């Protein structure tokens, strides 16, 4: 392998393997999973709950490692990902693959032991969907890559819900739907800023295939769908007063920022215009965090 020559310059540290697990993505997944678990009806055992959330975290890490194993060619081209353990030569591709496969098996086994077949099956499906359907197929094949692939990132609350109750309800799917519809405007805002890099790496992101204007329109269209969808938990009883305020105010702010991007020339090379997409991207993370934190507070107060 090409890596051998490079790894001789610096032996891989445990932190390099940890970086393969995409710890930032992991933390968001753990958070949304935790909220799913807390919101699900019933008491739930603390140890089993902890094990289920840990299994979700390990599965997310495994998916990250498998993604970095497969995408090391793309990662080496894009400046955002060039310093990752594989393209920088600190970890061999085979090691990342082995780590990903081992952790995948470990996470599904743990989930089966702690929560049973529905949660374990969903977890296995999520890893498969992210590593195989998204990474190996969709990402390089269609500008709808992150729309469909977003399902993998959206499922953790439902997995945690299933882990606690052994079943899935409308509310669980509502949480999935919110993250699923949130994903496209979130990623497309980022891709507007990194159009050139995706082009160089030949990843068919929407700004590359359909241009910046179409991307801005898509961002706005999905936000139009997201803002009302995110208020649905108010009506099903899943969200309380704090969630109602958060989703209404957050949705309005998201719509405003998306409209500003729509009216801009973001993604066309003008730094000042790009800033609007950058603000939307940062706000989208804050928005999702606030929505789920509000659910956590509402359910914490209800106890």
């Amino acid at each position: 392998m090409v890596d051998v020559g490079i790894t001789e310059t610096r032996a891989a540290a445990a932190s390099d393997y940890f970086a393969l697990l995409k710890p930032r993505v992991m933390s968001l997944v753990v958070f949304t999973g935790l909220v799913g678990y807390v919101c699900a009806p019933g008491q739930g055992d603390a140890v089993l709950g902890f094990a289920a959330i840990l299994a979700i975290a390990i599965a997310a890490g495994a998916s990250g490692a498998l993604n970095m194993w497969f995408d090391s060619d793309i990662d080496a081209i894009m400046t955002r990902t060039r310093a990752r353990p594989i393209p920088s030569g600190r970890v061999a591709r085979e090691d990342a693959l082995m780590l990903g496969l081992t952790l995948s098996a470990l996470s599904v086994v743990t989930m089966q032991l702690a929560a049973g077949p529905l949660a374990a099956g969903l977890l296995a499906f999520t890893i498969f969907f992210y590593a195989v359907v998204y990474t190996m197929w969709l990402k390089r094949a269609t500008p709808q890559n992150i729309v469909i692939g977003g399902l993998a990132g959206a499922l953790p609350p439902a997995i945690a819900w299933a882990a606690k109750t052994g079943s899935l309800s409308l509310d669980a799917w509502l949480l999935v739907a919110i993250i699923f519809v949130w994903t496209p405007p979130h990623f497309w805002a980022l891709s507007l800023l990194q159009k050139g890099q995706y082009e160089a790496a030949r990843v068919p992101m929407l700004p590359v295939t359909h241009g910046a204007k179409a991307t801005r329109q898509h961002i706005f269209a999905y936000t139009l769908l997201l803002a009302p969808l995110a208020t649905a938990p108010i009506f099903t009883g899943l969200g309380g007063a704090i969630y109602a305020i958060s989703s209404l105010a957050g949705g309005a702010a998201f719509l405003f920022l998306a409209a500003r991007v729509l009216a801009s020339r973001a993604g066309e090379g003008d730094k000042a215009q790009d800033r609007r997409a950058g603000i939307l991207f940062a706000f989208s993370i804050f928005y999702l965090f606030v929505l789920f934190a509000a659910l956590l507070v509402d359910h914490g107060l209800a106890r």
Partner: protein
Amino acid sequence: MSEPIILTPEEARARKRRNFWLALAISVFVLLVFAITIAKMKAGVG
């Protein structure tokens, strides 16, 4: 016959550190399975 691999002191240290984390991870997994088993026995679930 291929040449035996002789690790540099830095590589040997890195391997030791990796092995430490691996041992820790395996130990945590064993404890986790134990804790899950106890929790399930308490709940009366097989």
